[in-house]
Structure formats: C-alpha cells, structure tokens
C-alpha cells in the first residue's frame, strides 16, 4: 500500500533495574540507539510522541537529545502508552505532517506492586483504604473465574510462566535470565491465589524507541524496514471485567482486547492464522492464557493443551513472548508496549539470535492490556529487503 508507514530504527535501554540512571536518561538512550540504527540524528526528527507513567514528561527528553523545536506530544495512556504513541506517529507521517517520526516510552517504578490512588481513576477513597484497589487482585480474580469457566488447572499457569523464563534465558537483554522448574513456579509464594510469585511480572525500569518514516522512503535509511500494517487502541465497553471495578454488570461483554484485535486484523487484512510471531501482555501467566484466546489465537479453554504440546514455544506453531515477555523483562509501563514491537522487528529482521523463530517469519503481532481497561494492538510485516 502506498501510504504504509515503516519502522526504520529500533533502540532499547535494557529493562530491569539501573541504579543511578533516571527513567528519562534510559528513554534518551533508547532514542539515540534507534536513530543510530536508522542512520539519523535527532535534528532530522519532525514529530515525536512518547510517555512514561512514573518517570516524568517525555518532551523533557528534548533537554537531553537536542532543543530542535520539533513538536513533541506527551502520551499518558497507562500500559497502552507505547501503542498510542506509535499509532499517533503513524497517523502524523501518513498525514504528511513529518517525514521522520519517533515513538518513545520509558519508565522507572518503585519496587513492589503499584499503588494507585482512587481519585485518579474516578473511584471513592474507601475502595483503596479497605484494600480492594490492587491490580494483582484483579488479575487473580479474573484468572480464578476463567480457570473455573473453562476447566483449566493451575498447571496451565505454571507452563506459561515456565515458557516465559525459558525464552528469557535465551535473550541477552532480558532482566531475568534463569530458567525455572515447574516445581519452583508451582511452589513459589502465594501473592494473590491462584497466582504466585513466579507467575507475576515485576514493575521495572527501561526505555524503548522507534524511528518511523513513510514506506516509500524507508530504503534511504535501512535495508530491513518493517511495515506497520495496523496500530490501534480500544477502551472498555459496558459489562467487561476490568481492573479497578467495585462491581461487574450482570451481563458480561467482551474485553477491550477482543475489539482491538478484531479491528487490527481487519485493518491489516490478515487473520490470526497468518501471524508468525506473537507478543501478548503477560502481566501474569493467567492474563497470558486469557489474552491468547481474546486475541483470537486459540479457543477459550484450549490453552493448556497448546502449552503442553509446546505449540507456543519458539519453534512451535504460535511462538508467544519470544523475548521472555513481561515475566522475564519486567514491566516499565511506558516502555513495555514498544519492547514488544522491537522484539517483533528483531524477529522479522532475522536478528534474534538464539531465540530466532525459524522459517523467516513475515508477520508479527503485539498486544498490551492495562488499567482502566485499555488495549493496544499492532500488526507488523517484514518489508522487502533492499
């Protein structure tokens, strides 16, 4: 398509904990690497979108990268920050606003579970004070009900976590690079049952950035462009089971992920069976199971069988979270969605080393989900190599 937009540069500051380096500095590091990857410098950038949840305003990155006067929009969309930034840059380039655009996300969270303030989410103080406003509780409550409704066992949670850490061990950039046995995961400390310590990702730090331009111009900058066939986000509808919900409606509605996935497949003109490499939100291994089905990659209840057979492994039919996902990389909220995009680009370029999906993957998929019920999806396609 003539108005396709391409990713021509990728850059990351490794996720994890980097004492002494601010979140902004980790974001600037990622932007510099992405520009270097595209053979460009910051003064070539005509538009930038970015954000962090806990590490400051993205447009302050200009203080570190250069005060060039470029329009820089701050994005604050929780877990969908990276996805929203990417979708905005794509639209800006497609509109002719700029030739070169940057999408960036970064973060640096305190240790431990997030502690949201009720008022920021339109809720009353008692909800937080009495101990009901925890994201980990939501993931546990949704997982508990899901396992019950679809006759899945705790074993599925263990298998999903085990695969994430196995993939993370193959990724030199991952934060957690140790494989865990099924027993270590199954016997780890309960956090919010049925979810245990090694079934949850941790809030972390890191930065991720992309450089984009129109697909027509991409070969000026790279031999391996990646086309953005879809990049969009959706918010919740009445009746879906969302984080921070004091009550759920009598009649259930599908999650925002379902609508984001459908719209992305329609926009890209492909279906789930066409996708060669998949990154889905794995805040915890229960969410990963649910998201496998919500994104259309399997039927509800089929997950345990797919995991047992290794079909979600790097060499399987549905390679999921090939870089170890949030479980092995941690979750700096602002950067997490762009990490997924970078992993898909790395796979489509054939540069993923020990974790490379075999058989020249051509189409990739990324998905995030977060509070208060947002989901962002991208579908990416390997461009023709020059």
């Amino acid at each position, binding site marked *: 398509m003539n108005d396709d937009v391409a990713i021509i540069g990728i850059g990351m500051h490794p996720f994890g904990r980097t004492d002494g380096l601010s979140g902004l500095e980790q974001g600037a590091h990622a932007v510099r690497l992405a520009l270097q990857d595209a053979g460009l410098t910051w003064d070539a950038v005509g538009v930038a979108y970015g954000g962090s949840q806990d590490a400051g305003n993205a447009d302050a990155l200009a203080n570190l990268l250069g005060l060039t006067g470029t329009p820089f929009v701050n994005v604050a969309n929780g877990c969908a920050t990276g996805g929203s930034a990417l979708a905005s840059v794509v639209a800006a380039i497609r509109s002719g606003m700029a030739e070169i655009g940057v999408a960036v996300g970064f973060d640096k969270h305190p240790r431990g579970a997030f502690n949201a303030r009720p008022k920021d989410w339109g809720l009353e103080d008692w909800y937080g*004070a*009495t*101990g009901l406003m925890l994201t980990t*509780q939501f993931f546990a409550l949704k997982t508990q*009900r899901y396992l019950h409704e679809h006759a899945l066992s705790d074993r599925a949670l263990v298998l999903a976590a085990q695969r994430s850490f196995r993939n993370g061990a193959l990724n030199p950039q991952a934060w957690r690079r140790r494989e865990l046995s099924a027993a270590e995961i199954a016997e780890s400390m309960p956090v919010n*049952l049925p979810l245990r310590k090694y079934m949850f990702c941790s809030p972390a730090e890191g930065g991720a950035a992309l450089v984009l331009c129109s697909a027509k111009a991409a070969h000026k900058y790279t031999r391996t462009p990646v086309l953005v066939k879809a990049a969009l986000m959706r918010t919740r509808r009445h009746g879906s089971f969302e984080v921070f919900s004091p009550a759920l409606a009598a009649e259930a509605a599908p999650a925002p992920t379902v609508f984001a996935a459908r719209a992305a497949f329609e926009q890209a003109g492909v279906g789930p069976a066409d996708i060669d490499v998949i990154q889905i939100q794995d805040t915890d291994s229960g969410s990963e199971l649910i998201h496998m089905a919500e994104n259309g990659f399997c039927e509800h209840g089929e997950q345990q069988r797919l995991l047992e057979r290794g079909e979600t492994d790097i060499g399987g039919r549905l390679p999921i979270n090939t870089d170890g996902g949030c479980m092995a990389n941690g979750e700096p909220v602002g950067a997490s969605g762009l990490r997924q995009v970078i992993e898909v680009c790395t796979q489509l370029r054939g540069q993923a080393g020990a974790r490379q999906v075999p058989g020249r993957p051509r189409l990739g998929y990324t998905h995030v989900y977060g509070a208060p019920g947002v989901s962002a999806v991208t579908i990416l396609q390997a461009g023709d190599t020059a």
Partner: protein
Amino acid sequence: MPPHLIASHLLRLDGARPALLGSRCCDCGEVYFPAARGCTRCCSTQIEPFDLGHHGRLWSWTVQDFCPKPPYDGVDNEADFRPYGVGYVELACGIKVESRLTLADPTRLRIGMAMELTLEAYRHDADGTAFHTYAFGPVHGEDAAA
C-alpha cells in the same frame, strides 16, 4: 453505639440486617454499586437508589497475601498485617459486587458457595476505635457442609 463505617452511603443499617445500597437506571434498569450518577450502559442520567440486599453466591475469589501499600490503611505496621479474602459476590439481581471476605483460607473458599453480607472491622485506631466496612462471609452452616 452504631458501628463506625468508613463509607456510610454503601449500606443501609435500619433493617433487621445490613443491606448494600446501589442505584438503578430508570431507563434501562441496569444496576450499579456503588451508586452511580450516570448509566454507562445506555448513557442515561435518570438514576434511582436501589437496595441490593444481603445474599449472594461467590463468583470469584482470591486471598490478599501481602500487605498493600497506601492508600490501604487497614494496618499501620506491616507486622500487624493478616491476609484477607477478596471476591466478587453475585447478588440476586445479577450484579457481582467486589468485597472483602471474612474467610481467607483457600481450602474453604469455592466458587458458587452461598454468602451473606456482614460488617467487618478492617482497621483499629491506636485509641481502639474500630472502622467497619462491608464484607461477605459464608452463610451459617454452608461452610461446615462444604
């Protein structure tokens, strides 16, 4: 002396037993807890108070095993923290209300068990004042039979 409630608008205490208070859309009948000012289903702003009752069935559950950071204020010191149950309880009208549970033992909690509303002292101040919130617990006899 009546119990000290953290949020008195959530409950009605004037009957024989406590009842949860919510609201209902006058146009489409959708029910809300806590009481809403607008209907997110049909976008109406015609809302009336609605009594949600005090009985339901456990729809999902977990146990809060670690001490939450503020704004949780159930304990002042982490050493005083005791795990508590959290669940969604499906009420007669179909709404599922999120609630603390009086049980925190995973071997005794199961989806579908009958639950009833009660008051729980979730916080005690240094001077001994107890702060109550709504909670659900097993219907008497149900737990023993399980």
